[in-house]
């Protein structure tokens, strides 16, 4: 399935770690928002994302990224991350999140 059981205390970074095919990351900056597509390299506890082999969906409008292949994206500026649907097991994720919530309650 491609989903790794998340470590306790950091559900989402564990969840993110398992993707191999390109994901889309939407970033807003000033009034300009851009979508960056790339392969997930790593994630940390703040959900900072490192992508390799990136491409911008609209290179005409956003020419600055043309010479960049890998990038580090600060977690706080990400609006959403679009993931390949077939790599996500929602049932497993739900169960893990529930377990996490129960653990936190205790």
């Amino acid at each position: 399935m491609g989903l790794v059981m998340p470590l306790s205390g950091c559900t989402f970074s564990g969840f993110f770690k398992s993707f191999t095919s390109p994901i889309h990351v939407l970033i807003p900056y000033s009034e300009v928002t851009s979508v960056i597509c790339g392969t997930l390299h790593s994630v940390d506890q703040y959900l900072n994302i490192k992508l390799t082999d990136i491409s911008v969906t609209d290179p005409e409008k956003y020419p600055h990224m043309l010479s960049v292949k890998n990038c580090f994206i600060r977690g706080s500026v990400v609006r959403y991350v679009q993931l390949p649907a077939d790599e996500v097991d929602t049932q497993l994720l739900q169960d893990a999140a529930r377990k996490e919530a129960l653990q936190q309650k205790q």
Partner: protein
Amino acid sequence: MRLVTLSLILSLFLSPEKHLVLLRDGRTLIGFLRSIDQFANLVLHQTVERIHVGKKYGDIPRGIFVVRGENVVLLGEIDLEKESDTPLQQVSIEEILEEQRAEQQAKLEAEKLKVQALKDRGLSIPRADTLDEY
């Protein structure tokens, strides 16, 4: 600082080439990354501010920058090969500043027309304030 964040951020030091930094206010800075911490505070050396207008760009040399992490959107490694075969054309500083001014002017006018059109219909879109994110 947890080891995961540390290793993710420190791997950025491996590249000998310049780094490109996108800031929240829309600016693009290019320089050698000398320091980074868990907040993504950066120290950039021999920094150049690059302004893009259409297919042209201009570089303004700025020296050493200390950037507060909250203003950083993205940090990328510049690939020298891709940099050399870019379709963009470099122009002088005066020219790019002039182009930027013209572009801002055009944008303001388009915005004014839009706001007026909405007002005529009794609608208004509140402008998003970046500080409201917090």
